[in-house]
């Protein structure tokens, strides 16, 4: 997961610590505690479910925009992604394992629309202990993970909207589909590059 593990010297300046050294794993319990505080903070501050989800999404975007760059350097990549499929593959096969220790289950292209893509995950890691009370209706804490995806894609120059949807009927399971809807100018640019 992200950043420092235990046992590392705290006397060196953050800018001097090597970025490319693989960090130790962060305990899921520690992360989940932090995440639960984040969720509770926004629950108190928000006055509606959409506002609540948007706040979590914004938090995720901060993570995503940094995750893109950190993992780009850690993989030793020398080229930038200029195509939609390229950036989505980098996200699902490099950034996802870097953050959640597993690859995304699958990446699909939308059938009905050229701008839609779907990322499947059976049990997204940040929300693994989340149970949404019925009083909050259809609120989905995976808005945080949607934010991470959106942060990665937007920062790389692929403006989009990302929403999380429960894949199981009845909304009780954890299988989640992240729907990525790229903006028109991104789709146009990608088609133009395909033509070359």
């Amino acid at each position: 997961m992200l950043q420092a593990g235990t046992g590392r010297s705290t006397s060196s300046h953050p800018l001097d610590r090597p970025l490319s050294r693989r960090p130790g794993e962060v305990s899921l319990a520690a992360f989940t505690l932090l995440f639960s505080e984040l969720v509770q903070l926004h629950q108190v501050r928000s006055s509606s479910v959409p506002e609540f989800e948007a706040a979590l999404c914004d938090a995720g975007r901060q993570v995503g925009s940094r995750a893109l760059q950190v993992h780009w350097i850690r993989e030793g990549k020398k080229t930038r992604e200029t195509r939609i499929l390229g950036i989505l593959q980098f996200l699902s096969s490099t950034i996802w394992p870097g953050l959640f220790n597993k690859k995304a289950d699958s990446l699909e292209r939308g059938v009905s629309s050229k701008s839609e893509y779907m990322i499947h995950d059976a049990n997204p890691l940040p929300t693994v202990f989340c149970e949404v009370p019925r009083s909050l209706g259809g609120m989905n804490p995976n808005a945080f993970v949607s934010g991470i995806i959106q942060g990665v894609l937007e920062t790389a120059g692929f403006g989009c909207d990302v929403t999380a949807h429960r894949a199981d009927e009845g909304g009780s399971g954890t299988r989640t589909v992240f729907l990525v809807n790229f903006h028109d100018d991104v789709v146009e640019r990608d088609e133009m590059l395909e033509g070359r």
Partner: protein
Amino acid sequence: MSALSSQSPLLFMIVGMTEPLYTAEFQRPGTTTSPTTLQYNHFLLHSSLDSVAALAWSTSAAYLRTVEKVNDRVVSAYLTPSHHKFLLLHGGRSEESVKSFFLEVHELFVKQLCSPFQGMESPIESKAFDDRLRALGRRYLS
């Protein structure tokens, strides 16, 4: 490298979406540059932004080599995956040393961005960042 080009001042800039986030001028100790030359150097760098923007989607390379050449002054550019632009105005440093400089600066830049107090499009005001960047400049560009 002629003696003249190795004495010419260098200008390095990190440019975000809309404005420069960081600027560093490197001068040989003991020499001074007139304000007109400094302004002209800034103008040269800014005018090369169009060339960089044109390359952003036509190539997947990060190191963009020389994007502008005026007399003996050269602008080299590097584009990060987050579309931040690194620009270096110099008088003919070798490609290898400029590329190495950019790669090291990129890593320093990403580490700086990891700080929660550093916005992705906010100016970089950290003295620690400035010190380390200048050290990289002395190491690779002098």
